[in-house]
Every structure is written in C-alpha cells, then in structure tokens.
C-alpha cells in the first residue's frame, strides 16, 4: 500500500512539474511578447516629436536601444527608466526594443543576426564577459572620452574591470552579481556548526569539505553546486574563483595564452578539489531544481536569486562568503551596456548608459531583480545591505569580486573551463581533460593574433 502511494506521488509530481513548466513557459512567452509590444508602444508614444523635428529642421538625436528580458519586473523597471530619460532630455529620443534572453543563445543570436545584416542599435545590453570579444571585433566602441574619472569611480571596481579591454573602458552595468554560500540554519545548528558571519570569518576549502561531510546524511547532501543549470556559463561564473583563490588562472593576464594558465598546477588543484567534493559524495551532479530550498542540501553555492527562492520557500536560511584557499575572491559580472560602432552620436549614447546605470537606476534594478547594485553609494542607500546577511554580499561585491577574463576567445574559453569542471565532477582524470581543452582554446586564440 505504501509503495503504491509512493508511486502515485511520483506520477503526480511529474504531472505537476509538467503542468508547471508548460504553464510558466507559455506565461513567459505570452508576457514577453505583450511587454515587447508595450515597450514599442511606450516609446512610440512620443512619436509626435519626430514630425515637429523634421519641420523645424532642428536635429534631434534618435537612439535605438536593445535591452534584454529575463523577467517581467526587470523589463518594466528598464522601460520606466527609459521613459524618464525621454522626458528629461528634449534633444534625445530613445527607442527601446526588448529582446528575449532565455539564458541560452536567444539574445546573442539576435545580436549576431543584426551584426551580419548591419543594423545594430546605438546602445545594447551585452553580457559582461563578452565585452572583450565585441570590443576586439570593433562592434562596440570605447567610451573613455565621454566619461570622467569621478563618474567612473562611483562604480564598484569589478564593473569597471568587466567593461575594460586593452586599457579602454567599453561598458557600464547597473547590476552586479555574486555567489554566496547559503546555509540552512536549522541543519547547521543541529550539526553544531558555526556559520561565518563576515568576510573575515569566511570558510576555507578545508572547512567547506569538513563541514559538508558532516552535514551529509543518508537522505540529504551537504552541499549543492546547482549542477542542474547544465554545463554552461554557470560553471565558469561559480567555479572560476576556486582557481583564482588558489593562485591559478584561466588565461594569461592579457588574454592571449591559455597554455600554462588553464592547465597550471594551481588550476588543476582547484579542479581536483571539486573532484574530491563529488567523490566524497557531499554533492550530486544532478540535484533537483529546489534541492536547497526543500532542505535536501544543507549548504548551497548559489547566486543572489537563491535568497529570493529560499525566502519564498519559507526556509530558515543564511549566507556566508564564498569559501577560499589563499586569496579571497568571489564571482562577479552581469549584463551591462555598450555603445556600438553603428551610432552617429556616441556622446548621447553614453549619456543614456550613464542614466541607465546611475545610483537611482541601479537601486531600482536591484529591487526588481534581487541582484546587488553596481554603484558603491547604492549599498549605503539601500538599508538591507547594512545588516546581516546582506552585508556579507556587499562586502564581497566591493572587496573580493573578480571579473571573468577579458579575452576575445571568451565563448570558447568559458566552455573549455565548464567542460573541465564538469569532467572533474564526473570523476574523470582532470589533467588529460584540461589538456584537450587547452588545445581547443589555443586554436581559437590564433584567430586573434595579429
């Protein structure tokens, strides 16, 4: 009888998941298309200006602006900011286009298509680590001439680091991101483990290993690394700081050489640490979607969005800093804006970028997305970042955030690291896998040798 119930529960679960997933996908599609329409209609609203402009011969600047959509609240916040910009500036008019970002290739496919067809917008949202490849190809242009040092210094360092290629600044972002070591307060208390409550107290690799083992039981894992996100950007975003913390690297400082960096002993050691975590059975390579939220993992190395979902699930949760070996570093980087070479008025375009990333904007976006803001002052204005547990995220973003490597070969490099990380998780021989990946990236790098 019990077994039958178990079975029925399983069937129900799958059916529910099916219903949920199909619901959410149709919802998001529906809402995105409708908000897309909103976006265009919102901006067309002020279209009357166009005709009057032509009549007077007064030259108004028209800017096409691509923003990405991952969530509706976020997009609405962008639209409100753009509307405010249009009201504030009589001589600049922004046409926003909302483009779906499904976390895979939908957004970059749009950019690629526009690029080949030669109709890129004036300003577009780009993912932080991809800035270098666009910069190298001359798709986007440096903005140093249009921004003063004081404005620049208001951004957290990692945002400037992320937007810089060959000593020139190309992009500015409104959002930062980070990875925290989340923990289930009840389970830690039960096991008598003391969490780290500030950056100083951050756990070392050994502490993470020891405590994860302690927290692993018959029916629960000690740690969740969100391997269910698939072999992609997540593994580089979350995993690369392990290598950096150990003195390793993914690529040379100037972004032109991986041999001796991706396969350096320090990077290999970091990947072997990952391998050990999996071999000890404290973490699984196929966790359920809500493993941490449902209490089936005591610790989780997750993004800012986990705070939101854990809160929604009613979990008694806390956050700790990213664990370290020698140097304290933490993941960083998010969507940012860049001015394309298609624009006729880079000054107006940079004006728009500054508007979209100023303190007010960054607070608005942070509230809509749960991501940390990109302006230092915003952390002071937003009260939640001055008390635990969010103060830890603030410390991390300001002090230890490390941007992903700036190299035009980033798309191949990130896959190479993600594949190596995944191979380590599966218990493969790290060294030989990394060696293969090094060859792959070296071939790609040849393309950019001049």
């Amino acid at each position, binding site marked *: 009888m019990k*077994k039958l119930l178990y079975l029925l529960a399983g*069937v129900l679960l*799958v059916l529910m998941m099916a219903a949920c997933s*199909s619901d959410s996908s149709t919802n998001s599609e529906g809402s995105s298309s409708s908000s897309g329409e909103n976006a265009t209609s919102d901006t067309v609203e002020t279209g009357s200006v166009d005709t009057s402009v032509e009549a007077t011969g007064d030259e108004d600047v028209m800017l096409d602006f691509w923003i990405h959509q991952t969530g509706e609240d976020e997009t609405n916040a962008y639209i409100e900011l753009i509307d405010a910009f249009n009201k504030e500036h009589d001589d600049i008019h922004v046409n926003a286009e909302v483009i779906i970002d499904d976390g895979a290739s939908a957004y970059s496919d749009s950019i690629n298509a526009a*690029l080949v067809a030669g109709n890129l917008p004036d300003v577009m949202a780009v993912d932080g680590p991809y800035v270098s490849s666009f910069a190298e190809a001359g798709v986007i242009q440096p903005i140093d001439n249009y921004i003063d040092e004081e404005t620049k210094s208001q951004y957290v360092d990692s945002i400037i680091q992320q937007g810089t290629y060959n000593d020139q600044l190309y992009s500015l972002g409104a959002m930062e991101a980070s990875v925290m070591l989340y923990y289930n307060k009840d389970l830690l208390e039960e096991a008598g483990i003391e969490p780290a409550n500030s950056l100083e107290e951050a756990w070392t690799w050994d502490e993470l290993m020891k405590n994860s083992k302690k927290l692993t039981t018959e029916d629960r894992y000690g740690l969740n690394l969100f391997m269910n996100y698939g072999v992609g950007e997540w593994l580089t975003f979350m995993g690369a700081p392990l290598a950096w913390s150990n003195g390793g690297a993914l690529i040379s400082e100037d972004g032109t050489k991986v041999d001796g960096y991706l396969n350096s002993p320090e990077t290999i050691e970091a990947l072997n640490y990952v391998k050990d975590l999996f071999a000890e059975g404290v973490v699984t390579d196929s966790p359920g979607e809500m493993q941490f939220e449902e209490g089936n993992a005591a610790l989780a190395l997750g993004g800012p969005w986990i705070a939101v979902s854990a809160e929604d699930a009613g979990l008694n949760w806390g956050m700790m800093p990213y664990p370290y070996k020698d140097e304290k570093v933490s993941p960083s980087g998010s969507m940012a804006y860049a001015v394309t070479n298609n624009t006729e008025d880079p000054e107006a375009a940079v004006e728009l970028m500054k508007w979209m990333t100023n303190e007010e904007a960054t607070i608005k976006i942070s509230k809509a997305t749960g991501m940390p803001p990109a302006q230092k002052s915003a952390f002071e204005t937003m009260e939640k970042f001055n008390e635990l547990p969010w103060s830890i995220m603030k410390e991390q973003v300001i002090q230890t955030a490390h941007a992903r490597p700036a190299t035009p070969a980033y*798309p191949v490099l990130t896959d190479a690291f993600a594949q190596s990380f995944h*191979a380590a998780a599966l218990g493969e021989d790290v060294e030989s896998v990394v060696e293969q990946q090094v060859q792959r990236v070296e071939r790609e790098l040849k393309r950019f040798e001049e």
Partner: protein
Amino acid sequence: MKGNSSSAKQLTDQDHYEAPSEPSIKKVPPKRKKRRKSQAFQEALTGYFFLAPALILLGVFLLYPMGAAFYYSFTDFYILKPDDISFIGFENFSYIWQDAQFRQAFWNTVYFSVIVVPVQLAVALGLALLINKKLKFRVFFRTAFFSPVVMSLVVVSILWTFMYNPNEGLINQLLGVIGISPQPFLTSPDQAMNSIIVMSVWQGAGFQMMIFLAGLQNIPNHLYEAADIDGATSWQKFLHVTLPGLKNIALFIFITISIAAFKLLVQPMIMTQGGPLGSTKSLVYHIYETGFNYRDVGYASAMAVVFTMIVLTITIIQRVLIREERG
C-alpha cells in the same frame, strides 16, 4: 448505301466550298499555329506563376543558404567580423580530420542512427500489428501511441528530463519500488545516449505506426484466406503474407527514419547539452554550436557541407539497394 451517298455529298460540299475560299484557307493554318503557341506559352506562364511561391521559397530558404554555406566553407567567416572575410582554401576541411569533437559527434550520430533505425522500425511495426487486431479500446491505444508525435519534441524532451532525474524522477522512483538503485540516466556518459534513444523511439514510433497501419489494411484479405486454406500458422502468415505486403512501406519508413536520425539535434540540446563529456553531442549540434556559440561560421559551414555529403551518400546507397531489390 447510306455511307456512299453521304461521302459523295461531302465531296460535293467540299468542292463547293473549296473554290471561293482557297486564299483564306492558306491563311488559316498559320493563325491556328500561332494561337497554339501563345496558348502553350500562356499555359506555361500560368504554371510557373502557380509554382512561383514554392520556387521562391525554395530558392530563398534552401538553395541560396546551401550555396552560401558552400561558399563560406572555404572562408574564415567569423560572425563578429562580417566585413572581413577572406578565402582560406581547404583549411576548414583539413581541420575536420583533426577535430576530436567532430569525430566524437560523428560516432555518436552513427551509434544513435544504427540503434534507432531498426528499433523504431520494429516498434512501429509491432504497435501497428497490435492495433490492427480487433481489441477492446483500440481507438484509445491508437490515440495513446500516436499522441507523442503530436507533442512538440522540445516539450517531450523537457518532460523526459524530469522523468530521468536520479533523485526525484518518475522512472527512478519506479525502479526504487522494485529495489533498483537510482540510475544516472542522463548524467552518466555510458547511459546518456541510450536514454535519449529510448525517448526518441517512444516519441517517433507512433508516426511510423500509422503508416504501417495503413499498409496493413491495404493487404487484401483473400491472401490471408488462401493461406488459411493452405493450413498456414499465424507466424507463417506473418512471414509470407504480411511482411511481403509491407515491403515498400517499410523501405519508405526506413529511409525517412535514417535521415531523421542523422539530423539528431533537439533531444541532446534540451536534455544534456551534448554532455556528459560530449557523449550525446550529435553532428548537427556540433555544427550549430560552432557556428552560433563560437561564431566560427566558416568552419561550421565546412562541417555542414561534409554532413550533407554523408547524408547524401547514405541516401544514394539506400536507393540503389532498393532498386536492386525491386528488380
């Protein structure tokens, strides 16, 4: 008598008419020819007019891209630099033979096809035979077996990803009930491709089942009656009446499944992203990734050309074999 008189009458009629209208008669035939020519021309024009939508679509979305891919396969087209394309000869093609990922993707695709084609053919035939019997709830079974075909492959892939989950998935829960430990269906390099094969057969077999069913219903009943009179067992009837009757349909299905199997893309893309350790990366997926994620359109085009050659060769071999069997 009647005939004679009428023919005589005709003669006289002709004589009567011939004399005055001789000059005009000469003029008439050329006129008719002209009319015929212009008519034929107009008809052809109408024909082409009706064909135009199909031809234009075919040209724009098939022939032109094919030509473009062929051209780009000899270049270093990098998507971020569309204005800086240079001709590099056979460099892309020679790299294919050094590309370990291409080799792996090729053998993955071959493995998938070699298993899926016969299994799916057999399952489809089996289901068709079952449904052709006068069972209770026949319509229900037919609908149930056919329904996966109607569903989007993407949706089916996502559902099966849930079902294959080691910790919470339905299949592992069921295995747990009979005491088998959870299987890493999609996360083990040894099992992932087989898991995708099972799902693909389940999804695709319903369609071929319907074609087989139509074939079964086309086999004349008197053949079975004759076999009954000869005292044939039901196995003998299957072997000597049913199978020969389905031969042409089976060959058609064989070719279509083979081509579809070689184009494997959606399932690994959704379920495993080609992993673990590249064990489910198919040729088309590798081409897609190279072109769109890594922006190397030149090399992706070269692989696409090679892929087309491979599929073309297989199709030609199959055609030749079929012709021989028919003869």
